[in-house]
């Protein structure tokens, strides 16, 4: 029974972490272009300005 005392909180914390990660991804616009994202993963970007990090920030700002 004592195992429950830490197992249950651990399960909940892990679940909440997953939820937080999902909400973060949603807010930073990562679900806005699911088709494009699958292509970007296999592209070698030589244009630094088009790096996803720089622009996802832009998208997030535009969304607000």
């Amino acid at each position, binding site marked *: 029974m004592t195992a429950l005392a830490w197992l249950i909180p651990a*399960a909940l914390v892990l679940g909440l972490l997953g939820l937080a990660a999902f909400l973060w991804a949603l807010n930073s616009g990562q679900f806005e272009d699911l088709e494009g994202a699958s292509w970007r993963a296999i592209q070698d970007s030589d244009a630094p300005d088009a790096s996803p990090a720089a622009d996802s920030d*832009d998208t997030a700002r535009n969304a607000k």
Partner: protein
Amino acid sequence: MDKALTSNLSIVAERESVPAPSHVAPSLKTVTLIVDNMRCGGCMSAVEKALLAAPGVQSARANLSAKRVTARYDADATEPENLAAALEGAGFNAAEAMHTRDNTQAREASDLLRRMGVAGFAAANVMLLSVSVWAGLASDMDASAQALFHWLSALIALPAIAYAGQPFFRSAAGAIRAARLNMDVPISLGIILASGMSLFQTMRGGDQVYFDAAIMLTFFLLIGRYLDESVRVRARGAAENLLGLKALSATVIGADRRPRRIPARALSPGVRVLVAAGERIPVDGRIENGASEIEESLINGETLPRLVQVGADVHAGTVNITAPIEVTATAIDEHTLIAEIARLMQAAEQDRGRYVRLADRAAQVYAPAVHLLGALTFTGWMIAGAGWETALTYAIAVLIITCPCALALAVPAVQVAATGRLFAKGVIVKAPDALERIAETDTVVLDKTGTLTIGEPQLIAPEKICAAILAQAASIAAHSRHPYAKAIVRAAGAMGLTPRWQDAVREVTGAGLVAETPQGEERLGSAAWVGADAEDGDQTATLWYRKGEAVPTPFHFADALRSDARSVVGDLQNAGYVVELLSGDRPRAVARAAAAAGVQEWRAGVRPDGKIGRLKDVSASGHKALMVGDGLNDAPALAAGHASLSPAGAVDICQTAADAIFQGERLLPVLETLKVARAARQMSLQNFAIALGYNALCVPLAMAGYVTPLIAALAMSASSIAVTGNALRLRTRRLALQPLRSTERHA
């Protein structure tokens, strides 16, 4: 983030806050461009590279799903027009996206997704606890551990339901306030009762704890809602892209006579606009300078150009053919055709608002039935002497088990599958209840020009004309943008003739072309211009060509049907649909098109109010019409029909009014839409049957008091999965247009 960009942005932010001298500070702006032929990852990076290579562009980010690219640019160095031109140089169709519509729908979809995430998290954790409890029933879990698990479930489920269930609660409250019943009423009641009773049972240490069922129900229904909404957002984005690509830019002449290009939607009344030959007129207005011919097929279905002079009114969307004109933009005048159409549309749309969706009709029968069963269970157990607490518990169990998870998913799941299938075929379904209404139609009313036909004239029987004459005529015709001249050039090209370039060709507005050659004068134009006797009564659809004093050669034109018009009309008629042609064009042209397409019933010279009148007659005789049209004169009829379709080439107002838009040169999508819509209705009904079958099984159990939380959870998931699985079949099933049933068929 890239370091250089960061510092750059922060500088901009500082400068924007301080009003600095504008010629030093780069004023960064954001623009969204539609790129409709961006189809793969390669195109995506090509689009981004092309934009970054253009001067003044700071960053560019393409969105492949939306077929749009967002760019930040320096407004002092460049403007959106240049960016679109840069993309066009790289081989993409680009246009600035309109920001007129609010994006509440997109925000709603991401709001649903957020609630879905929360509900999913809670459902997983509550399920974890519930499975332990169910396992504990079989082994030796003691009451205190069970109570702990129940309390934990309550702690997770109640806040999650309070947050994630809001869309249902709000919708149910709205329906009740309006004294209606929709599917959200039994859903909300089920969720709230399940949570309330579970909390009560938890406090008393009982077994009837349904937190898992309540949160899972919320989760499943949110998935359905979200998919439905995201399909709609996507369709809407695609529809806006179509309109955005058609949006025009205008050459404005300022007070200093210097021309400037601006987007047409930025035009205001009183502005003077220059329209070059061959350009679409961007605005309603009056001609100030010049004379030309205007092609108005989008306005009135007439393929023949109209001769206009100074003082004539012209409409936005029509094409200026022969000579450049200057137009002063006018405000919408109460007496114009456009104003009349706007009035008719408003009236027609008010009539349509009465349609009640299939799911809501089901809810109107279902909700009272379920509540009656609950009441019966309560009174039954009271009479049997079970005590009010047991009776109430069983009654609530009935309400929980009948809570229409499968029933509420039955229609949305099918809608998502059907809309997705049509989207892949180039049909954009815009209205949420469009498929249901399309499935009910039994009469197809077609417009002629641009709908049944391609909308541009074709040379009839070019092979019967001497090749040398055709080639010569084509070499003169190449100088004109008149639709007939273009048809001659196309026909000559199709026959492998190459027109040689001819100098000294003049175009006389309203008459024809003349070329001075050493061998004499060559003329191409109307009978009077060429000097031929028009023994043919239908001389308007004919051009004549004469070289020197030789006998003139006639060229006859007709608006060609879409390539599969005849077979589509045939298939529709075989399936029992009545097909009608309703056109604003001249009787001769309509009769010819009707005969060629195999349509028996046609009406010509019909004005917009006449089209509405005809549709009213159809509905008065107990039939339901699917209106297919593309012209401005069809717009009120599109709003008045039981359902409506519009080709992608249609005027804006039609695309907005139509329930669905189809793309491509062929008419086949109309058939496909009918097929899918009717299959969707059939599968929605199947899904209702599955859901009711499950209820027929579970309700007696619940009324008898045998339902446990475990049975409730299993039944709910199984029925939801069955219904969704059935709906998914629609994505790949082969469909044939089934004949209308005899009750629907015309006598």
